[in-house]
């Protein structure tokens, strides 16, 4: 039914998207908390930097990743020397690229969910003796859960489609970085590759649609659990 090439592309896409979403999620929660609750000098700048992947061309982001996280880059060389970790040309690197591109989406969704929480509930929790971490764990986090889930799925779906930053940073290596979008691109560049491209496009469509439907269902279940009708 599916050729080995297609199976490889799909499983790689799922792997990359899953890892990128999971690793970026805690960072996104922290960033969203800061943006929703904290006031400090430079907050707008912080907000702007977080949203850069949304407005900059993906290739630019990929290039920035290349010069910072490549083996000669500031952070990349440190990673290589200290931990032996190489990100370029690897699926780990593809996850990083996908993660960076989908980060602002996650932050936005979570931030909105946090801001939607009635601030009075926190005041009530304080009067009942709950300190800041206690309140975060028992009040803020559970009430933000639907938003976190929605942000995570959005990021997952976006990661499935990430192309520009991926191909610029980690290039197009079968089995490592050739996710569905890159496989589609390769097929379109190959003479008479249009049939293969069409098959891959159909696969990509199915995958993304399933992700979105799953997110809807999950969101509804969580909302019910949280007591919203």
């Amino acid at each position, binding site marked *: 039914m599916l050729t080995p090439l297609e199976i490889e592309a799909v499983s790689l896409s799922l792997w990359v998207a899953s890892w990128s979403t999971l690793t970026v999620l805690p960072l996104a929660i922290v960033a969203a908390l800061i943006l929703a609750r904290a006031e400090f000098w430079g907050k707008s700048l912080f907000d702007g930097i977080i949203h850069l992947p949304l407005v900059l061309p993906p290739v630019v982001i990929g290039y920035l990743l290349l010069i910072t996280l490549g083996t000669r880059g500031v952070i990349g060389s440190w990673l290589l020397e200290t931990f032996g970790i190489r990100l370029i040309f690897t699926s780990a690197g593809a996850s990083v690229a996908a993660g960076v591109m989908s980060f602002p989406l996650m932050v936005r969704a979570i931030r909105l969910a946090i801001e939607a929480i009635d601030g009075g509930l926190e005041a*009530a*929790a*304080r009067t*009942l*003796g709950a300190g800041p971490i206690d309140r975060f764990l028992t009040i803020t986090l559970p*009430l933000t859960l639907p938003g976190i889930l929605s942000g995570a799925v959005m990021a997952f779906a976006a990661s499935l489609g990430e192309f520009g930053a991926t191909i610029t940073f980690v290039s197009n290596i079968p089995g490592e970085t050739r996710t569905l979008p890159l496989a589609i691109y390769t097929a379109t560049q190959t003479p008479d590759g249009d049939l293969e491209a069409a098959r891959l496009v159909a696969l990509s469509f199915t995958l993304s649609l399933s992700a979105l439907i799953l997110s809807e269902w999950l969101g509804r279940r969580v909302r019910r*659990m949280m007591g*919203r009708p």
Partner: protein
Amino acid sequence: MLDIAIKRRQGSFDLDIAFQAPSQGVTALFGPSGSGKSSVINAIAGLSRPDAGHILLDGAVLFDSARRVDVPVEKRRVGYVFQDSRLFPHMSVLDNLLYGLRRVPQGERRIELEPVAKLLGIDPLLKRRPHTLSGGERQRVAVGRALLAQPRILLMDEPLASLDAARKAEILPYIERLRDELNIPIVFVSHSADEVVRLATTLVLVADGRVRATGTVAELSVRLDLDGAIGGPEAGAVLDTTVVSHDPDSRLTALRFNGGELTVPLLSLGIGQPLRVRIQARDVILALEPPSRISVHNMLEGRIIELGEATGPSRDVKIDLGGSFLLARVTQHSVERLGLAVGTPVFALVKSVAFDRVFPGPAGKHIAL
């Protein structure tokens, strides 16, 4: 006991409040919207910080600007009932109730779930979710949650304001029970004269960020200098009475108060039961001699002790009944016609059927209005 004296400036609003709330009964903060009442209990809770002053609870310092003490909210052990209940939507009623309790060390848990649930009638609600409850039910759960947090003081910020008349009537008796059975100060903020007259043991009148008057409801209800702050056109003396006897044949009940007796239509109350009664000033007629062959049952002998300002056609007259006071509203014309002045002995006439405003007094039984 609560001892509070604070100052706070916010923009153009200047707050300068000082009062004490005893450990028993309800201390009501009463005044119009924006007078600073909510700022006061937020300061007691620690949700806002005054610029200067002190807040002491049973001798323990919650706030003292001079000594730079400001105990954080979560450590103050205050029970706060918010106007909008603020129940946690993602928890069941039971989990809401236990939220504060769980954060108190085992050894300090005096107030327990069952008695509170019984007191507030919320047993059948325990497994439900807040969004399925009515407004009155939600507020009762909110009260229960605050109580179970083992508070040293109970703060209630207009808890009945967002309820309709039926829900209010449903929950008032529960608050009266709290007043009578709890041993911690209850500070109750309200802008409704009815609520305050019914519930308060001590009344603190607040206006423009200042305390205008403090005292019992009875005392403040007859003060002429408060321009009917309590009750407006329905202003009148509030008397705490006790039931002394019933006469089933004539369908009348006798109530004794400090300074006399009142005859009212038959009430289904036991002998000795306390009852708080309001006599509206406009229901009081003044006579220089007791009239005969008249339908009025209550002719209370007293002496004019104060006359209100002569603004408009009517004038308020304060009468000393020897222990209690009464307010009468008569026309300025009559004041001149009868030569009413401070010191004039008078008879205050009140119709028995004018007593359609009865509330249970402190530690009193509930009667439907």
